């Protein structure tokens, strides 16, 4: 009794994976031309922000507040370029969730300042990092903010503590990349879970999905029967949301433009085009839709709903290419949704 299945899948045939591809050059390029420079640049901007806050708390004036806001903006934008490297040392120090868990919880922050009791080492809270600074620096008009700082030692301390926490974590991440972790990153090749390439691609996807879902989808109400959530945008008080999304998508694209050689190597196809062309085309589409949005996003979600939804739609389409097609072509599994059980 031999029954041979002859109903095979239609062409195109399966990927040839990364059989035999030497990843060392690519990993070194990623590390030396993208990851470490981005991390150091962010460290630099954060250091400027830290000095500004020291100056502001020592001498609260509208001039110093304005300088702090500029430094805040530069550092926050710079953070978007490193958020996608949330593995290795960044994962150890809970980098993304400590520096950019949004939206900020203002009730908790107000309470923290009043009581003077808080612990930034607790994971996953919404009272620290950039979102907390966004609230503290921008929630009121400049003169009110300056007088609040002037009259409240606890407020001053809270500002300094936030930035100190961010600095500590950043230093750890940068030092690790310039040290042992950076060395192991270059040599940890392969396609298994935990290899450098797998971590890069997984976290690249994860960060992109945060942009799609948390930065746009949730505020726009696509997941809540059309009820918009304008206060859930990133950087609600400063209104920097769109600039941050722009920086985040640019960072995704920059990283992609380094790993596109892999898709060329396996000659990945998508329909009648290469997968590489499909992804690049989708980045162009997304940016085109993005250009139509007028900030701040918290208002656009209600006033310019159609354009926001069009942008969301194209941003969603990209996930198919980056999270399903690209890992399949490279034979890398998406591991941030882990199997809790055995398989067969």
């Amino acid at each position, binding site marked *: 009794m031999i029954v041979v299945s002859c109903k095979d899948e239609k062409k195109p045939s399966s990927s040839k994976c990364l059989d035999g591809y030497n990843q060392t050059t690519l990993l070194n390029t990623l590390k030396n031309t993208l990851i470490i420079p981005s991390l150091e640049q962010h460290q630099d901007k954060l250091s400027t922000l830290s000095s500004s806050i020291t100056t502001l708390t020592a001498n609260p004036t509208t001039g110093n507040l304005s300088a702090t806001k500029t430094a805040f903006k530069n550092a926050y934008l710079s953070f978007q370029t490193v958020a996608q490297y949330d593995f290795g040392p960044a994962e150890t120090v809970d980098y993304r969730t400590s520096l950019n868990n949004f939206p900020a919880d203002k009730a908790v922050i107000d309470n923290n300042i009043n009581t003077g009791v808080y612990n930034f080492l607790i994971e996953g809270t919404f009272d620290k990092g950039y979102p907390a600074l966004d609230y503290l620096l921008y929630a009121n008009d400049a003169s009110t903010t300056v007088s609040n700082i002037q009259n409240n030692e606890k407020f001053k301390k809270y500002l300094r503590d936030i930035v100190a926490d961010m600095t500590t974590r950043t230093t750890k991440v940068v030092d690790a990349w310039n040290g042992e972790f950076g060395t192991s990153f270059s040599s940890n090749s392969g396609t298994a879970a935990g290899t450098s390439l797998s971590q890069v691609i997984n976290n690249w996807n994860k960060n992109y999905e945060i942009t799609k879902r948390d930065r746009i989808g949730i505020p726009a109400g696509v997941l809540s029967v059309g009820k918009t959530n304008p206060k859930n945008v990133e950087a609600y008080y400063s209104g920097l949301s769109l600039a941050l999304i722009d920086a985040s998508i640019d960072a995704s694209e920059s990283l992609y433009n380094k790993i596109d050689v892999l898709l060329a190597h396996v000659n990945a196809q998508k329909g009648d085009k290469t997968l590489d062309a499909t992804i690049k085309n989708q980045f162009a589409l997304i940016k085109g839709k993005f250009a139509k949005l007028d900030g701040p996003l918290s208002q656009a979600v209600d006033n310019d709903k159609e354009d926001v939804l069009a942008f969301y739609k194209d941003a969603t389409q990209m996930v198919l290419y980056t999270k399903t097609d690209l890992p399949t072509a490279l*034979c890398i599994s998406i591991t941030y949704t882990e199997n809790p059980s055995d398989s067969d």
Partner: protein
Amino acid sequence: MNYLTEKVKIYPLVTIRFLFGLMMVIGGIRFIINDWVDKLYVQPNFFFKFYGFHWVEYIGDDYIYPVFYLMIASAIGIALGLFYRLSAITFFLTFTYIELLDATNYLNHYYLVCILALFFCIVPAHRAFSIDQHLFKLSPNEYIPRWCVDIFKLQLIIVYTCAGLAKLSPDWLFDAMPLRVWLPEKTATPLIGWLFQYAWVPYVFSWAGALYDITIGYLLLSRKWRPYAYVIVCVFHGFTHLLFNIGLFPFIMTLMTLVFFSGDFHKRFYRFFGFRRMQNKTLHYTNVFVPILILHFVIQILMPFRHHLYASQINWKEEGYRFAWRVMLVEKSGQAIFQVTDKATGRTTEVENRNHLTAFQEKQMAIQPDFIIQYAHYLADYYRQNHNFTDPKVTVTSNVTLNGRPSREFVKSNLDLTQINITFAPTKWVND
């Protein structure tokens, strides 16, 4: 009938009774220690059901652990031959109940455990080397009807043969898929990891695996080849244990295939451990189960081939995929984005799958047509009740990639999934 009822030695049956019970104890404890009871049964709000078993209800968070404890206790009973009959039936019922709760967790080897457990319910595996013997003063019997032992062999042969035949596909043989994806991930494996940097290795493994599955059952039947075959069994399942995350399966197969060895072979083993008093008695055991078992095996032989009744590619649409010993054949992933619209008011929303499903359930749902429909029906009810949708329509944008191919649209978009019901008819709502 004479052949089936002639007397054979009971020892092989006792051996696998003990080992089966032991493995199930370990498996149950492992499930609890790994926190899988919580992850797979306590955390989900929604369960996917098997066709015809929608009536199986979750017992509740307070009682699910006791069900596992009861299952483990009954497995101990099987191993020791303590209240054997009650233990075997309890084990079968608890284990099967747990498997029926959520089809997400379906694994072929769990299905095999259900079948083997059912067999243990009807064979007199406690008539030698059991506590019951002493407890109930049962006379020890050295001989039992042949069918009591042979059903285990036949079942294992069916499993192997079907698993092997399923591998005779172009993907497996000519593209070495999905091993070509899985093996290079294993370059860190001790001793053999270095092999997987070579592109030809997955092909060797694919062909060797297919050959093994197709032939091993018959080699084990042959008295001459049996010792060599068993060495191959150990090597093969040793490899699969090292390379894949397949839990107890390699151990189940390695230990259950001991049943192929003769009664005398096993007897020597018991002698070695000091059980010297063997009684040359025959148990006159009921043969009432024989016709039912014949029916069982007819079904077992037909079930794995039912997919030929459908014109579709089985690994894509999965018509006739379950209960067919199709193991390790696909690397499949996808995403499914659901849109629920109230036709009465036009209100519409995308669904946040993570609010309804665990990550594992979502992953499984996206690639299995009947899960997508079950979930769509659930969503319609959910939005009816929680968002006052009076006439909900559920559509999905879904894409799936199979064995390294670019993703393609899976379920046809713009179909109202609430209008579709699962039957045995061809799944027309999925693209070919």
